[in-house]
């Protein structure tokens, strides 16, 4: 097996704020505007892709984030083996892409997932995100695609004062630096 090397490989605390890169879990991008797509995903993953904007649906294994009316991001809630990842990707690809129901694209390493926890995470984000977190904050499962320090991010509210942040791999070290710098001044 190959060694893998993620970008951040770090975890930091500032007061009750903790930041940590989550070890890569499976991430798959789905796109479709076909009618049967949802049902098919439902059958394959026991979870329906959300239709409502800025929301997600989750079960024990997976979360599906709404990205646009025809685009979703699936990620596995837990680390799963590389073989399992492959199986799932192939299964989805065969049932969706190969049946012309949409597209399935593995984006596991496209995104780096950083977990932010603590009472001041929204103070941190509001230093450089124009997004109004008022509703997002209150609703578990909310999803926001916005800018953080001029970088595209996807935010997923997984619990009170606890969210997962997705940033493109090539930007991740840069954003990590910014987050840590800003966390010093909360």
């Amino acid at each position, binding site marked *: 097996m190959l060694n893998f090397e993620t970008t951040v490989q770090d975890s930091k605390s500032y007061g009750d704020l903790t930041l940590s890169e989550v070890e890569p879990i499976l991430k798959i991008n789905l796109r479709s505007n076909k009618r049967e797509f949802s049902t098919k995903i439902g059958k394959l993953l026991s979870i329906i892709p959300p239709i409502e904007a800025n929301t997600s649906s989750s079960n024990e294994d997976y979360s599906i984030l709404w*990205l*646009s009316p025809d685009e979703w991001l699936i990620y596995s809630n837990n680390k799963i083996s590389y073989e399992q990842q492959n199986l799932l990707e192939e299964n989805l690809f065969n049932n969706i892409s190969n049946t012309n129901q949409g597209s399935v694209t593995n984006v596991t390493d496209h995104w780096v997932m950083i977990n932010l926890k603590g009472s001041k995470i929204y103070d941190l984000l509001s230093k450089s995100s124009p997004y109004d977190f008022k509703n997002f904050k209150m609703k578990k499962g909310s999803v926001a695609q916005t800018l953080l320090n001029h970088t595209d991010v996807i935010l997923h509210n997984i619990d009170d004062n606890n969210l997962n942040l997705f940033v493109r791999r090539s930007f991740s070290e840069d954003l990590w630096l910014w987050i840590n710098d800003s966390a010093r001044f909360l």
Partner: protein
Amino acid sequence: MFIINCPYCGERDQTEFSSGGEAHIVRPKQPTELSDDEWAEFLFMRKNIKGIQFERWNHSHGCRKWFNVVRDTSNDKIHAVYKMGEKPPVNK
């Protein structure tokens, strides 16, 4: 700094969007049959309206969808937004 109501994601800050210029300039279906003048009309000529303009925006840092906006270019007030392919909600 506008607030633009993305028809898919809701109200967001202008910095999440990029502008795509005048809307409803349909790409000719058979460009080869156009004269140079007609092609130039499609390519370059713009109304550049002072007043109510129908224009395209892209939620480039959000859902990446293109959509249409009705904006008064004389005061930047946005009157409506609507999806691609939809009819303008106000008279053109």
